[in-house]
C-alpha cells in the first residue's frame, strides 16, 4: 500500500477519532480501576493515543517535528514508568496494597 494511496483513503480525522477513543478508554481506566499498576498502564495507553495523533499529524503535514516529539514522549513515559513503578513497589512494601483508594492521606 503506497503512501499516496492511504492518504487518499484515510483522512486525518479518522486518526483523530481513533486516538481520541483510545485516549478516552485510557482515561476511563484511570478513573475506574483502583490497582495502581493498571493505572500506570492506562496512563501509558493515553500517552500512546497522543503519540499516534502526533505521528499522524506529522506525516500528513510532512513535518518531522511531531515524530521527534513522540520520541521525547516515549522517553518521558519510560522515566515515568520507572519512577512510578519504584514508588509503587515502595508503597506495596509498606502497605501490602496497590489499591489507590487506600492512599487517602493526600489532603491538608
Amino acid at each position, binding site marked *: 500500500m503506497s503512501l499516496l494511496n492511504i492518504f487518499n*483513503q484515510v483522512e486525518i480525522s479518522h486518526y483523530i477519532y481513533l486516538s481520541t477513543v483510545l485516549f*478516552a478508554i485510557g*482515561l476511563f481506566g484511570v478513573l475506574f480501576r483502583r490497582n495502581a499498576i493498571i493505572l500506570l498502564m492506562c496512563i501509558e495507553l493515553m500517552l500512546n493515543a497522543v503519540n499516534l495523533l502526533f505521528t499522524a499529524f506529522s506525516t500528513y503535514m510532512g513535518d518531522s517535528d511531531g515524530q521527534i516529539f*513522540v520520541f521525547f514522549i516515549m522517553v518521558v513515559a519510560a522515566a515515568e514508568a520507572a519512577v512510578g513503578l*519504584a514508588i509503587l513497589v515502595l508503597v506495596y512494601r509498606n502497605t501490602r496494597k496497590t489499591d489507590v483508594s487506600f492512599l487517602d492521606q493526600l489532603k491538608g
Partner: protein
Amino acid sequence: MFQQLPIPFLILSFLTILSALYVVTSKNPVHSVLALIFTFFTISAHYVLLNAQFLAVVNLIVYAGAIMVLFLFVLMLLNLSKDTEPVKSNWWGIAAAISAGSLLLIITAAFQVSGEAIAKNPVEGIGLVKALGKVLFTRFVVPFELTGILFLAAMVGAVLLGKREKNNAVLIPKEERSDS
C-alpha cells in the same frame, strides 16, 4: 463512512480499540499487561501505515519491549497476578464513564468545530532514521541532552526508592501501625 476506508486500517483500528478495552476491563492484571502489549503492537502497525518506520520500531522496543516488561516484572515481583482488586461500585463506574465520555465528546466536538481540513503535504521519508536523526541532533539537540539528564534523574530516583530502608513505615495507616 467506514466503507471507503482501506481494510487494513479498519482492522487495525478495530483491534487497537478492542485490546485497549480489554486492558481496562480485564480483572487479571497480567491479562491487562498482555493486552496492552498487543495494543502497542497494533499502534506500531499504524505507525508503519503512516510511514513512520523509525517510530514503529522504537515503539516496539521501548514500550512493548522495555516498559511493559518492567510492568510485568513488577507484577510478578509483587505477586499480583491474582485478581486482588476490590470491585468498585457501579456508581463509581458510571461516574468514570460519564467523565471520560464527556471528555471524549468534547474533544470530538472540538475537532468538529475547528474542523478545517488540514492540508495534506506528505513528504517522502521523514519517518526514516536518517531524516529524524538530522533533526534530532541539530534543532533538538538541547532537549535531547536534557532527556538524558531526565533519565539519569529517573534512574537515581528509582534506585533510591527501591532501596530497602528500615522504619519507613510512614504510609501505613494509624490503625495498622498501632496493631504492629
